[in-house]
C-alpha cells in the first residue's frame, strides 16, 4: 500500500530505539535514513524526504532547533518523538511547525499508524469519482462500478455508500446515517438502515466486506479488505 519510494528521515540518538523504529518502518515499505544526532540531522536536506521522525532530546543540536531549521524553508511533515510528556513541549513543537507528536513509550504499530496517517493523501471529496479498494463511485452519475462491473443500487443504498466513501476508514455513526440517508417521508429506524446495509453488501459482491459493522458506532468503509 505504500509507495516504495517513500523516503523517511529518522533522527534518533538511541541505538536500540533507532534500529527498532528503522526496522518497523522498513518492514512497512518505507525507505528510512537514520541520523543519530542533531548536527548530522541539520546537514540533511528535508526536501528529499516525505516525512521526518524527530526525537526532541538529541546530542549536539537540540531537536527543537532542528525543527526550526527545517521549517525555515520546507514544509515536509515532521513527527516529533518525546520522552517528556509536557504540554509546553507539545505546544512549542506545534508552534514551531511540527505536524504531530508521539510520547514515549509507544508501540511500533502506534508509530506506523501515525506515519501512515500523515502520508495518506487526502481524498478529494468534491471530485466526482471516489475510488476505495475495488470500488469506483461516480457521484453525479450516481453509478457504482465494482471491479469494472457496474452495479445497480437503490437511492438509499447509493447515498449510504457515498456517505461512507467520503470518509474511508472512518467509522460513521448509525444515527447520523439514518438521519441523512433514509427517506424522511417513510417510517424507518436504525434497523431499516441495517437492512439496507446488508442488501448493499450483497450487491457489492467481492467488495461487500469493505462495508464493516463497527460495534456500538455504526459502519465504516475500509480501504482494503480485512486480512
Amino acid at each position, binding site marked *: 500500500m505504500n509507495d516504495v519510494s517513500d523516503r523517511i528521515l529518522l533522527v534518533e540518538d538511541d541505538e536500540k530505539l533507532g534500529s527498532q523504529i528503522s526496522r518497523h518502518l522498513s518492514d512497512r515499505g518505507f525507505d528510512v535514513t537514520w541520523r543519530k544526532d542533531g548536527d548530522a540531522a541539520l546537514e540533511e536536506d528535508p526536501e528529499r524526504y516525505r516525512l521526518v521522525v524527530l526525537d526532541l532530546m538529541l546530542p549536539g543540536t537540540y531537536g527543537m532547533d532542528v525543527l526550526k531549521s527545517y521549517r525555515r524553508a520546507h514544509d515536509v511533515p515532521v513527527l516529533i518523538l518525546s520522552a517528556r510528556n509536557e*504540554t509546553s513541549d507539545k505546544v512549542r513543537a506545534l508552534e514551531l511547525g511540527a505536524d504531530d507528536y508521539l510520547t514515549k513509550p509507544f508501540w511500533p*504499530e502506534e508509530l506506523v*499508524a501515525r506515519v501512515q496517517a500523515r502520508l495518506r493523501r487526502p481524498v478529494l471529496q468534491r471530485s466526482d469519482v471516489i475510488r476505495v479498494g475495488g470500488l469506483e463511485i461516480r457521484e453525479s452519475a450516481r453509478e457504482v462500478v465494482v471491479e469494472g462491473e457496474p452495479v445497480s443500487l437503490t437511492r438509499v443504498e447509493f447515498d449510504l455508500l457515498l456517505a461512507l466513501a467520503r470518509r474511508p476508514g472512518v467509522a460513521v455513526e448509525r444515527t447520523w446515517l439514518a438521519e441523512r440517508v433514509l427517506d424522511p417521508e417513510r417510517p424507518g429506524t436504525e434497523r431499516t438502515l441495517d437492512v439496507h446495509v446488508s442488501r448493499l453488501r450483497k450487491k457489492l459482491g467481492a467488495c461487500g466486506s469493505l462495508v464493516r459493522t*463497527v460495534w*456500538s458506532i455504526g459502519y465504516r468503509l475500509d480501504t482494503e479488505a480485512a486480512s
Partner: protein
Amino acid sequence: MSLRTRLALTILLTAIPLAAGLVWLRAHTRRLAQERSLHDLVVTVMQAGGREMCEAFPDMFSGGHALFGPGSLRVENVRSVESGEEMEGLEEALQGLEGGEALGKVLERMKGLQGKEGRVTGFLPGPGRPPSSQSSVSFSGLIRPEPPPEHHFALWAYRADLSGASTVAPPIPVRIRVKLDAGDATASEVFERRGTSVLRMGIRMPWADGPCAVMVAERALPPSDDDPMILWGLAILCGGVLLAVFLAAGPMVRRIRRLKADVKRSAASRYESPARIEGRDEIADLARTFNEAAEEVRAHVAAVEEREETLRRFVADTTHDVMTPLTVLQGHLSAIRERTLSGEAVDPAEVRSSLEEAHYMGSLIHNLDAVAKLEAASKDLTNGGIDLAALVVRVVERHRPIARTRGIDVEFTVPEAPVEAAGDVTLLEQAVSNVVHNAVRYNEDGGHVSVLLESDGDRFVLRVLDDGPGVPPESLPMLAERRFRSTEARTRRKDGRGIGLAIAKDVAERHGLTLTFANLDPHGLEARFEGPRLGAG
C-alpha cells in the same frame, strides 16, 4: 575602601583645590591692588609737577635709587661731578620752602646742577591734596625720616615710541615693551632682586608728546608674610571638617555594621529572624527593604521545597510502582527465554502478559506524572485549544496494539468538523486514555471498545463504551465520586479502576467537564465526558 576613608578622601580632594584657588585669588587681588597703587602714585607724581621736571631734566628720570616719604621731596645723591662731593647745601636751601616757590627753587637748583653727576629720583605731593596743581605740592624739606618701604620707587622716562628720554635710560624690559607696543595703557611684571620681589610697571601717561610720555616704575613689594597664616587657617578648617565628618559618620557606620550583623544572622537562620529597623532614615529603609526581600526569599524557598518534596515523592513512588510490573515482566521474559532455549513453544499468554505489563508501566508512569502535575499545579493549568478528534485518534492508537493481543476491537468516530476544548492537552489526553485503558483492561477477550466524539451546538460529548462485565450498580457512584490521594496512586488495585479513573475525574473537573459512568444493557460500561466546546459557533 571604608566609608570613613572615602568621606575623608572626598573632603580632602575637594578642599585642597579650593584652598589653592583661594590663595591664588588672594595673591592675584593683592597684585592688582599693588599695580593700581603704583600706577596711581606715578600718575599723581607726574601730574603734580613731575612732568615739567622730567621734561626739563630727562636724565634725572633715568632710574636710580628713589626715596619718597609722604609729603616730602628728597633730592639725594647729588654730587659735584668734579669733586664727587655730596652737595648737602641743596637740602638746606630747600628747607622751609613751600608750593610753587619750592618747586621753582628745585628747578633752579637743578639747572645749576646740570653737567654734574646727580639725579632727582622722585617726589610726592602732600597728603590729601589734589595732585593736578603744582601749588598743591608741598615739600617739607630734606629731612630724612625713614620712609615706609612701599613708598620706595624708581622712575625712568621714555618717549611715546618707547625710546629712552635720555642716553642713560636703559631699554624697556621685553615683556613690558611687548604689551605697551600692543597698545596697553599699562604693563607689569614681578621679578626678584636680591631676595626681594620687585614690581615693575610701564605706564603710558595721559599725554603722548615729549620725552616723558611713558614712565617705567619699580617698587619693592612688601613680603607676603600673611600667606602662611591663610594656609594654616585653611588647614585648620579642613581638619575641623574632617573631624566633624568622622564624628558624624561614627553612628552611621556603627548602624551599618549592626545591620550587616543582622543580615548575616538572618541569612544563617534561613531568613527567619528579621533585621532591626532603627530610625526613619535611609539605613532604616535599607533594613526594611532587606526584611521584605527576606520575606520573598522565604516564600520562594518554601515553594521550591514543596516542589522538591513533590518531586522526591514522585521519584520514590515511581520507583516503587514500576518495580512490581517490571519484576513480573522480567519473570515473563526469563521464562520465555528458557522455553525458547529448551525448544519448547513460547506460551502466547506469557507474551501477552509481558506486553500488558509493559503497557501498564507506561500508563502508570504517565499517571504518576499527572498526579505530580495536579498536586503541584494548584493554580491554572496550561490552557490552550485542544483538537479533540486528534486526541481521540491518539488515544485509540495507543491502546489498539495491546487490545489486539486479546482480540479486542478499539474503534472510534469523530465528526468531520473540528471540535476543540480548552485545557491542558497532556492531562486531558491522560484522562481519556485512562478511561479507554480501563475499558480495554477489564473487558473480555474478543470484546469491543468504542470512543465516540459528538458535538451538539456549543457542547461536546466524548463517550467511551465497552461490552465488558460493567460495574456492580452499588459501586457506580463510588467509581464516579472517588477522590484520590497520592498514596493511592501507588496501590496496584485488584479492581484497578481506582487511580486511573480518579485522575480522569479530577482532570475533568479542573477543565470544567463532567465525567459520569453508567452500566450498559445488556452489559458493559459507558464513561461520558461532557463539557463546553471552545469557540463553537
